[in-house]
Each structure stands twice: as C-alpha cells, then as structure tokens.
C-alpha cells in the first residue's frame, strides 16, 4: 500500500506527496500532459526536442544542471507519445533546489538561438544513434504509420524524419511552450523523507505565483477500426529476417486492459511462456520471440515480434505465430497458467515500486489517467481477471483485419 496526500494549487498544479522516512534521497517528479501525440503532423519530434531545450536554462536560472550537481542531485527526463516527464533525486536537505529550478522553467525558458541550434544537432544525432545506426533500428518508423492512419501514434517520439527537427524555429518553440507548459497541465509528486506540510509550503512558495495558462486543447482523433490486413516489406542490411505483427488494442483506462496485458504475459512473459517454449525451444523457428503491449494511454498496440532462424521462411514463421494465437482463443488457458502470470505480474509490479523515483512517477501517471489511488488497486484488478476475459480479448484482437505486419528482410 503506497500512502500519499494529494492537493491542488490555485493555479491548477496537482501535487502529490508520498512520505517514507527510510529514503534519504528524495525524488521529485513532474509530469507534463504533453507528448508526441500533441504535435502537428508536419512538425513531429517537437515534444521531445522541447524536452532537450528545457535543460538550456530558464528565465532566472541560466543553467539547469549545475545547481543540481551542486546540490548533489541527479536529473533526467523522457518523452513518450503521451507525456513528457522530468525527474530529480536529491539528498533530502537540498530538495528546495528542485522546487526552485522546476518552477523557474515552468515560469519561462531562456529561449536562446544557440541552445536551439545545438539541441537540434544533439537530437539529430540521437535519431542517428537510436534509429538509423542500429540493426532493426528503423522498425518503429515504419510500423507505426502502417498501423495508425489517423491517430498521432503514427509517429515515434523522435519524429517522422530528422528534417522536421532541423527546421524548427525559435518562434515555434515559444508557442509550443506557452500552449503546453503550464501549472494547469502538470502533476508534481515528491517522494521520500519529507512531510506533506513541507511540500505544501514549498509548492506554494515556488509554483504558487505562476499563473495558469490557456492551453491548446486540440482534440485527438480516434483511430478508426482497421478493416483490412496491412503489410509492408523492408529489405535491409541486417543478419536475419524479422517479423513484427501489430494488432490494435484498448486504451489504458479500459476494463479490458488488464486481461490484454495478461494475454501478452501468457504468450511470452518468462521462459515458461507459450511462444518461447513452443516456437523457440521446441520448434526452433525463432531465435527470439516476444509479445508485448505498448501500454499507451490511448488505444495502443499488441505487438508480436520474432527473429527467424535461417531455415524458416516468413510464411512458415507467420503461420506458426498465427496458430498459437488461434489456440489461445478457446479452451486452452488453464487456471494454473493464469495464476502463474498473475503471480508474476504482482512480483514485477512490487519490484517496480522499490525506489522513491519509481513511486513518484507511478503516482503521477495514474493521476493523469484519472486517479492516483489506482496504483494501489492495480494488483487486485489483475487478480480479478478470469480466463473468459482473456479469451474474449484474444478473439476480438487476433483477427487478420486488425493486423499490420512488417516483414523485415535480410539482404543476405
């Protein structure tokens, strides 16, 4: 049970406090409700580029990293399709430095042309390093637009192409800031050896004076139901053929989410899982196979991906996957198997809450979904899933017309 207190400042900033006296390092996590899905389709990669610019100094604090280092802290950030999240850990005596820096960059950035130019380069090198200079690195650049035709999940957080990043201007950057970065679009959580009163005082002192802002509230169009099988073949200089199958699934708030997650676990979580035992160990068709959900806030994807052994064609490999997906739809899941994936879920969930920063991030994420208290009911929600729920989901998802398949072919 993760206990916490939650309150909202007058300007709309939501604040959550988890007190744990045994944690000498305090975590400070601030989540902004802006991600790649809020971008203009002709200006993709912006939310992520922006995350980089947030470290380029703010209106009163010309340098972000140095004061953190002086306070013995550590900081970083990540951008997803749904959110941008910033986090720091600091020795408890120095936590006010986090309030100072984070409130100042919420107030306003320094916006320098030099910082923009350099970070554009850094992000383009990140694009190169992660997506272009890695075997199979460009998969998501192709799989997303294959599966999504309308919803902005069709591009990855890094953006559709480096050109979108290269052409960003300082004016666009400023507009993006004022329409998304605001106290009324953020959730703050502080976790560790700190009391709720201390946090309330500091939050009011540093964030209180920032006025709420008018947000750009563009509605995001739902992805229409897919009605045809889609496929794409890519040929690349990689050592082995790989297959990626993406099926549309429900959103994170949906009552089928837990059943869908457990379905992916039965298929491939752990060495005793079906796909690994049957297709890697016994039939030796794949050297690696994985089934997972993207876990996005909006309607996400259920992915099955495998790297083929040389002796098998795409056709045979795909047929083997589809056979497993057929089998799981009716009368094959046992109570034992369900119990196993539930135990495993409980265990990884519990291990995922052993540090102050994991707790702080999770509280913010569940709060964005509607209620931070959900964090404490996740395990029991999963415990209540029945075999019939999983079979229902499998039947609904695993149809040919709901599938986008990428055949990633080795040149050799």
């Amino acid at each position, binding site marked *: 049970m993760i206990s916490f207190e939650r309150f909202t400042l007058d300007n709309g900033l939501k604040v959550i406090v988890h007190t744990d006296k045994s944690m000498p390092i305090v975590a400070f996590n601030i989540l902004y409700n802006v991600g790649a899905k809020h971008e203009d389709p002709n200006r993709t990669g912006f939310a992520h580029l922006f995350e980089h610019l947030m470290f380029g100094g703010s209106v009163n604090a010309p340098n972000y990293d140095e004061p953190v280092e002086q306070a013995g802290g550590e900081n970083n950030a990540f951008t997803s399709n749904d959110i941008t999240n910033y986090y720091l850990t600091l020795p408890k005596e120095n936590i006010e430095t986090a309030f100072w820096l984070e409130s100042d960059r919420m107030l306003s950035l320094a916006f320098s042309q030099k910082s923009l130019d350099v970070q554009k380069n850094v992000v383009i090198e990140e694009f190169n390093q992660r997506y272009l200079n890695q075997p199979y690195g460009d998969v998501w650049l192709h799989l997303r637009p294959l599966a999504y035709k309308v919803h902005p999940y069709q591009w990855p957080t890094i953006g559709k192409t480096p050109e979108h990043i290269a052409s960003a201007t300082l004016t666009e950057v400023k507009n993006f800031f004022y329409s998304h970065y605001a106290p009324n679009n953020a959730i703050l959580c502080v976790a560790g050896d700190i009391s709720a009163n201390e946090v309330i005082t500091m939050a009011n002192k540093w964030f209180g004076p920032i006025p709420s802002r008018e947000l750009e509230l563009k509605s995001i169009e739902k992805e229409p139901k897919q009605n045809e099988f889609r496929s794409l073949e890519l040929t690349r200089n990689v*050592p082995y053929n790989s297959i990626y199958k993406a099926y549309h699934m429900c959103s994170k708030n949906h009552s089928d989410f837990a059943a869908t997650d457990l379905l992916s676990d039965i298929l491939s979580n752990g060495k005793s899982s079906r796909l690994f035992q049957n297709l890697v160990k016994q039939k030796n068709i794949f050297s*690696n196979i994985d089934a997972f959900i993207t876990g996005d806030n909006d309607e996400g994807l259920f992915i099955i991906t495998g790297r083929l052994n040389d002796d098998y064609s795409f056709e045979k490999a795909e047929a083997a996957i589809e056979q497993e997906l057929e089998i799981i739809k009716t009368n094959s899941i046992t109570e034992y198997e369900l119990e196993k994936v539930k135990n495993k879920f409980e265990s990884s969930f519990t291990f995922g809450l052993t540090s102050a920063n994991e707790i702080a991030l999770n509280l913010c994420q569940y709060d964005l979904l509607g209620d931070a208290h959900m964090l404490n009911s996740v395990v029991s929600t999963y415990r209540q899933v029945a075999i019939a729920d999983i079979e229902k989901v499998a039947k609904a998802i695993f149809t040919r017309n709901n599938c986008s398949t990428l055949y990633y072919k080795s040149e050799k």
Partner: protein
Amino acid sequence: MLNRAQQPPVKIAEHINIPQPAFINLKNGSKLLVINEGDVDVCRIDILFNAGSRYQTQKLEAVASTSLMPEGTKKYTSQQISEYFDFWGSFINVNADKDFARVTAYTLTKHISQTLDRLEHIIKEPTYPTDEVRVWASRGKQNLTVQLDKTSTIARMELFKNIYGENHPYGMFAMPTDYDKISRENLAGFHASNFGSEGAIIILSGKISDTHINEAVKYLGTAKWGNGKLGSNAIEDSNPNLGKQFVKKDNAVQSAIRIGCEVCHRTHPDFTDLSVANTLLGGYFGSRLMKNIREDKGYTYGIGSYMVSLRDSTLLAISTEVGANFTKNAIHEIWKEIDRLKKEPVPLAELNKIRSHLTGEVLRSFNGPFATADSIIGLLNYNNLDYSFHDRLMNSIKHINPERIMELANKWFNQETMVECVVGPENPF
C-alpha cells in the same frame, strides 16, 4: 519577496553512513553477507563464484556453463524449472563476466524458500542437456551476429583487444563461430572444476528476517559441494598494441570512438583521486567532454569517460558515437580537453560542483537494499571487501586540489600510452 535568481541554500553531507556487513562463514566453506534494508517485501539473492572467462580453456565455457544452469538439472528439466520460477514470480539472472560467474534471484520475500529450493539444484547439479546447449548456442550466435553489426560493439572489442592483447583473458572475445564448438562435455567439465561451495559468496539483500537467513544457510551453506576456486591466481601481463586503430563500416551514419588505456587498480593509492579527475573529464552530465562535444558542438547524443573495473586491472575508456562527418573534430576536441586537464588548474567553482555531485553519487549508491548490495559486491570483487575504500573516496572528494588533478592527468592520460579506436565509414587518422 521571492528571489528566483538565487539558488536555495544547499548542504553537502559531511559523513555518509555506509553499511558494513561482515562475512558470516558457513559450514561448507561459502561466505554470507546480509544487507537487511527496505520497506517493501522483496529480496534478492546473489551467489558469486570465481568462475569467469579467465578460467576457461575454450571460449564461451564460462558464460555457457553459467547461463545454462537453469536449463536442466539431475532432477528437473529446463521447462519444469522455468515453470516453477515463473509460477512463484521469481526472476533468475545467470551470467559470467571475465572474472566472476554470478547467479541472481529476485523474489517476493514470502517466496524465498521456494526460490532457494530450486536455486540449490541449479547451481549444484546442472546437466547441460545436448538439446538445450544447441538451442542456447544457436540463439547466442544470432544475438552476437546482430551485435557485431553495431559500430559500438566492434569499437568496444577493439579497445579491450588492443589494450590487453587479443590472447589475454581480458582482451579476448568470442566470435559467432565459437558457438559451434561448445559441447555438453565442455560445460559439464568447466562446472565440475570451477563451481563449488568453497570460495562462493552469497549476498542476501532486501527485507530479510532471521528465518530467511536460516533458510538460505540451510539450502546454500550446509553441504559441501563441487570444486570452487578461491580466485587467488594472478593474471598475466597485458600486451598492448598502442596507437590508432580503424575498422571500416560502410554506410554507418555515425562513427563509434573509443579511447583508453590501462590505469591503476582500485586498490592503488592514486585510484580515488583519479576517479575524481575522470569525473571532471567525462564522468557526469556536466563533464567537460559533455559540455564541449554535446552541449556546445552538438556532435553527439552523448559522451562519457569511464573507469571500468576488472578484478586485476582497471581500464579507462572514453566512449562516444558521433555523426560520421564530425569524427575528426570530435577526436580533436577530446584530446584538447585532456590537454586542458593537464595544463590548467581546475577553477574552484567547478571543483566544488564535482565535490557535491560525487557526494550525491556515493549517497545514491547506498540508496536502498539493491543499490547497497551492488556497491558491496563491487567492493567485494575489486577491493577484497575493504570498507576503508569509501573513506578514501570521500577523502578524495572532499580534499583533492587542482594541482593534484593536473599531476594525475599528466601521469595517467597520455596519448603515447593510449589506444584510439574508430569504427565508421571513413578513416579519420
């Protein structure tokens, strides 16, 4: 009135409380360390053996005989074992590096007995079934082949090879064809002569009671087994091939750059001061290399300088991936920063920043049971569990002066004793 231009006052911890668990000697010759911390009902069991790749006679023996431990024992098949651990929600990690083999289990504390029970079978009685060896080898071969497609993998191997020599235990790497040569007999042989209760060290961390400790002793600390090594043999001298190395990789959009050399060991009196100097150069986000090559020039997504610990050596490695057309400039800037470290005294403000940053790092490395366990395993493997290492480190962090940093940079960071490796589309040298 709120003054936003002023950083709130900061305090830097004068003293850090570092847990110093003592060895508990077990009946069968193994030793136990217990780190009882944390509020969540989870724990971790680590078992360390002196059975890394330095002790093997054929490539991959160490990593294969460790990785395949859960793939079949006298009493249970691979599938039964994975079913069992998955059912109890336990996670098993098995691996070997150059010096040590390590078996790690993560478990909910309430399932520690079940986890220990099967763990015992895995470490003592693996049978290495031929089919399992074959599947493991074919998967490993594929994975390595994919890894070798990355400039970063090749560059890292080149660095080690050229610093230690390609026949040195620390400079040797398996290639995909080595996977074809391993057999059941190799692995069983390696297990029989390198794993055993003697010399094994067990580390329990997490929320642990005496009952849990007694369980661990029952399964892992009572009966003598195998032929464990104490790990006291010395390693041969390195045979470096200094200078510039280039490996061509057509069509790569980035070059991987690795620059490094062998530096003093963790037990050497220079070590803790040197690690402060290295942090300044490239050991944290605000380091000189990051500031210059990422934040000022935008040549890279990241650059770092690392002290890589091995049992009998320490390696300094500067590591980055840069846009292919920036390769020459990036190397030039790296040497410029090293030169600056040698010639210009570090400004006090920068030095103070490093002192607070590193103090925070030490605090973080003991934050929670698993971070503490990792730090203590580091001390165990590389400092013979000499707890005064952290006193020396804190002393260096607090008291090192600009002159000492220049002295160390001149002593250890010299182009004549370094290896420079570049893997990319074009030779920059």
